[in-house]
């Protein structure tokens, strides 16, 4: 469908953008790459009166690989992450997850900030933000503040971001060398939103036991979620095939799994366990035969 009637502004400073968003009294929307927002407009799921295009605000497309972590500006595109010379080494889990985002043409425009603000439950970037304990920097009329990614997502397509606020940057904590990690997702067609996905990492202590495991799922609930039962199952353990099977079986515990037209909840729950097992096996470089039923 054609887009609804709207006004368009392209400010060249963050201050002007925030002033425009405030002037919209809840009916203005920030436009970054537009790869989620414009389909929402085409479907009339959103009909903002004013679009505030962030394209000309300087500094929002920076990628900074620093000793204390990785900083991605809100306007960093998927293709920028893919092509960055040192990012894959600095954060292999992010680089791997981003390979799964949408299609070639979408990746040329879709942005980190746009994906976080849109908050699709199956999107990769929100999942990486949650599993990595990322911090999201938000600018608003009351200045800059930072919120933990785990507190940012409040439901499907819902976040704590206010209509007069903008995401400026996301910071992922530094990635130690030797960290074990994996990302697995399943979609019925390449580039589709995943029916489920698992992102995880852990370190090994001097005796080879799992230290501080982080495991999160996308696509199974109304927002990206940490899988606390699976984390508890491998924390402090030696990674063996049995430990992995136990953690994978625990993956769906204590979370409310979505039931929708794409897949019933029991299917998603089984898929989540399968993906958790694959991810844990991959992270440990183990080959574990999968049950077929």
């Amino acid at each position: 469908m054609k887009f609804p009637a709207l006004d368009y502004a392209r400010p060249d400073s963050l201050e002007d953008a925030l002033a425009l968003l405030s002037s919209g009294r809840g009916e203005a929307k920030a436009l970054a790459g537009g790869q989620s927002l414009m389909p929402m407009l085409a479907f009339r799921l959103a009909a903002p009166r004013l679009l505030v295009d962030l394209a000309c605000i300087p500094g929002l497309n920076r990628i900074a690989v620093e000793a204390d972590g990785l900083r991605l500006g809100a306007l960093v595109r998927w293709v920028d992450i893919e092509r960055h010379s040192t990012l894959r080494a600095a954060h292999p889990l992010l680089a791997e997850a981003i390979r799964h985002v949408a299609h070639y043409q979408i990746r040329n425009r879709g942005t980190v900030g746009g994906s976080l603000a849109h908050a699709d439950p199956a999107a990769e970037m929100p999942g990486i933000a949650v599993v990595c304990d990322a911090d999201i920097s938000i600018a608003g009329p009351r200045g800059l503040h930072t919120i933990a990614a785990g507190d940012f997502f409040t439901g499907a397509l819902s976040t704590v971001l206010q209509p007069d606020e903008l995401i400026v940057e996301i910071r992922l904590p530094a990635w130690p060398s030797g960290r074990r990690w994996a990302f697995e997702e399943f979609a019925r067609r390449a580039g589709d939103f995943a029916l489920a996905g698992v992102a995880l990492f852990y370190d090994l202590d001097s005796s080879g036991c799992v230290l501080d495991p982080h495991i999160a799922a996308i696509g199974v609930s109304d927002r990206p979620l940490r899988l606390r039962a699976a984390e508890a199952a491998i924390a402090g353990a030696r990674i063996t095939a049995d430990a992995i099977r136990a953690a994978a079986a625990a993956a769906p515990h204590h979370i409310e799994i979505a039931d929708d037209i794409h897949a019933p909840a029991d299917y998603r729950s089984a898929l989540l366990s399968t993906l958790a097992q694959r991810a844990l096996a991959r992270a440990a470089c183990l080959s574990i035969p999968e049950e077929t039923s």
Partner: protein
Amino acid sequence: MTVMPTRFKVNGRDVEVQVDSRTSLADCLRHDLKLTGTHLGCEHGVCGACTIILNGAAVRSCLMLAVQADGSDIVTVEGLADGDALSPLQASFRKHHALQCGFCTPGILTTAHALLSEEPDADADRIRSVLSGNICRCTGYISIVDAVLHARAAYRRPGAGQ
């Protein structure tokens, strides 16, 4: 709604259009500039028929406002051929029977042109992965992938493929 003067370059030509801010770039190209080679299938970013090349990158023209393209350099499918002479990529599509009804073809040509301009050595897996964003209901893709593979030589020569 506001009418905004918007200037960009399309297929090497500088243009200025007065567009409603709600107008998609695809509609602007088709209706205002009469460049009807760019096709619109789904109008929500799924089918890939409307793919154009914006500042060197393949993008969906249905997921952009025309006003967002202000100041940019655009190539549409009309910009690939040199007059009546098919580009090497287009000639390869004809040779390999890489189209039947042709509706998806403009988006596939622009996507493949952008890909090979940047990655002239793209292998079949890479080509399939990139073309997963373009829906073709006729060919089954095999002839399309063959055509793109065989067009690669033209992009490896300096100056070819632009």
